[in-house]
């Protein structure tokens, strides 16, 4: 009984920690993105509020919370209200299975540094990212606006097709870890990260995850120059904020996934594991921001062609080749 209580408390503490850290990180990634992009583009970025603009995210949240929460007259009200939450929720939930440090020994108990070490953690993440599509599609559909609809259709097609390449890119990772558990995948990278073992899988993974997360250069679902703001055209106030923050939570999740699957998770010399983990996540996030500063946007059909005709065959080939190699090495 006592044991159960302690476990419960521990899980709640971890949940609280993750929620706090991830949300803060997401808010400050917005600021970091604006500042880094600003530097790349000969601007300063936000620098008025607090020292060096450090309080900008706070003000943004206050602004979003106090804005009118507007529902267009002919929108499907309940779905319209519900969709943004879905996106943010799915992104947050993915964090439950991400291990950010080796198990910690405390008061004679071994505490795993993950909320829930699911043995199908990888599939769980995939399930949730598929669920996140619903936020986009329902939001776009319920808005009853043409631009939103176009954005939603783009989002749907893009996310569904790139999910396939994403899944296939991770098969070699699973093969070398012999497990779907994220913890086991990190453990398997103790000597060298998967980045060196499966470089092609890494490249395919990075491209697909960019498309999956709707980040530039694959931000067609919200390409403001073409379809105004895509699926969230009609949203205002905190509901828009949820879409927005969901995107940046997603960026943290992607950073964590890339770190876990390819960059060796918390493994690293000298520094404590958690620091390594966070550093790697931030590095991946920086790569995405950098890409946004330097790339134009492909056309939607070109993206689909690329996904189906190049990435998926390549990922399949990669599965076969890495499977054959590991088979040969084992025998």
């Amino acid at each position: 009984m006592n044991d159960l209580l302690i476990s419960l408390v521990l899980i709640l503490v971890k949940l609280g920690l993750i929620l706090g850290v991830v949300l803060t990180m997401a808010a400050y990634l917005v600021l970091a993105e604006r500042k880094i992009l600003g530097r790349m583009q000969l601007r300063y970025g936000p620098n008025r509020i607090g020292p060096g603009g450090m309080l900008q995210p706070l003000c943004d949240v206050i602004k979003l919370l106090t804005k009118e929460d507007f529902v267009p007259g002919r929108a499907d009200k309940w779905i319209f209200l519900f969709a943004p939450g879905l996106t943010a929720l799915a992104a947050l939930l993915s964090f439950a299975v991400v291990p950010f440090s080796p198990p910690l020994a405390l008061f004679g108990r071994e505490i795993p540094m993950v909320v829930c070490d699911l043995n199908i953690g990888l599939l769980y993440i995939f399930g949730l990212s598929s669920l996140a599509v619903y936020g986009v599609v329902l939001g776009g559909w319920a808005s009853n606006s043409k631009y939103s609809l176009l954005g939603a259709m783009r989002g749907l097609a893009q996310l569904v097709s790139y999910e396939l390449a994403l899944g296939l890119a991770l098969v070699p990772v699973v093969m070398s870890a012999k497990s779907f558990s994220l913890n086991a995948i990190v453990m398997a990278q103790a000597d060298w990260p998967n980045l060196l073992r499966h470089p092609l899988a890494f490249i395919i993974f990075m491209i697909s995850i960019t498309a999956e997360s709707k980040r530039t250069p694959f931000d067609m679902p919200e390409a403001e120059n073409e379809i105004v703001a895509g699926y969230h055209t009609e949203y205002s106030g905190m509901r828009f904020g949820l879409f927005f923050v969901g995107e940046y939570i997603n960026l943290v999740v992607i950073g964590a996934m890339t770190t876990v699957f390819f960059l060796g998770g918390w493994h690293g010399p000298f520094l404590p594991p958690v620091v390594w983990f966070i550093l790697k996540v931030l590095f991946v996030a920086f790569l995405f921001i950098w890409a946004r500063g330097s790339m134009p946007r492909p056309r939607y059909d070109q993206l689909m062609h690329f996904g189906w005709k190049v990435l998926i065959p390549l990922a399949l080939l990669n599965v076969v080749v890495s499977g054959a190699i590991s088979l040969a090495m084992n025998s």
Partner: protein
Amino acid sequence: MANFETMTINMGPQHPSTHGVLQLILELDGEIVRKATPHIGFLHRGVEKLAEHRTYHQVLPLTDRLDYLAPMHNNLGYVLAVEKLLGITDAIPERAQVVRVLLAELTRLKSHLVWLACHALDIGAMTVFIYCFREREHIMNFYEKISGARMTSNYFRVGGLSADLPAGLEQEIREFVNTMPGHINTYEGLLTGNKIWQKRIKDVGVISAEDAIDLGVTGPSLRGSGVDWDLRRDQPYSGYENYDFEVVVEDGCDTWARYIVRLKEMREACKIIHQALDKLKPGPILADAPKIVLPPKQATVNTIEGLIHHFKLISEGFKPEVGEVYVGVENPKGEVGYYLVSDGTPRPYRMKIRPASFINLQALPKMCEGSMIADVVAVIGTLDIVLGEIDR
């Protein structure tokens, strides 16, 4: 076979990439554009009609506001037309001619920078946008030093220039133009070799040479379709025949070809600016035509002739002979022409402007049909339209 409905969508006039207040009614089949109908007129100010109630001098500031990204060129076309009407084309002093070419080419650079910035931004490359505006800022500063205004310069005058170039500006312009090829290399480094950029603009917005000529397309958009036509060379004005430059022509007929044409034109403009700076010698900046150009301030206050001329020109204006002229100049966006009819009064009886953007816009529906929404944005960018000129 099911009967699919098309979706009609209003793109603009409030849309991030319609370059102002263009409205496009798009008929969409999924994402494919079946029909694009431009609707214009949101910025109509009636410039042509306004001109009929102003003296020839007073019309000049109106022309700044046509293609507000290349005001010097609009000024130039208008003053050339009035000078031709007055028959003083050959009386323009050498220095004024050279300064006109110099500033016209700086303006071309400025206009093309905005084009590249917006074109790249529309396709999602937002860093290029800000890089281009950094260089444009220099040219705006030159404008400010020359005329006092950063956009609406109103600097050229019938018979010459409103004032001489400020001291030291030549050196500044030369230094800026020396850095320009390096900057253009930077833009190219971000775009030209980028596979996404190439895929986005190659074979997009195709218009054949015949169609382009039939629709009256001019400027870089025409030269991108392989038609070798440039008024600076074929109907030289302001002494363009004395400059050594290449008319850039590409055969691709697509957005990529027009992209290459404009980038090379920017390099050619730098060459012309250098030549103009070399030719620049001290000398008078106004024609010796006291009945047309305003006398210097000294003459106005010290001599009776100066005072009378000043009074007559300000209170009444000059009166060209009865007649009509048409003068076209190679604006950065295409041929801008002024057709002036004089009935012998100090005000034009009629001024008809042939705007480059308005006529180039005619090609848009043809270039968009069957393409995707994303291509519409690329096509608007490549046509390099300015709504101030379209709506007048």
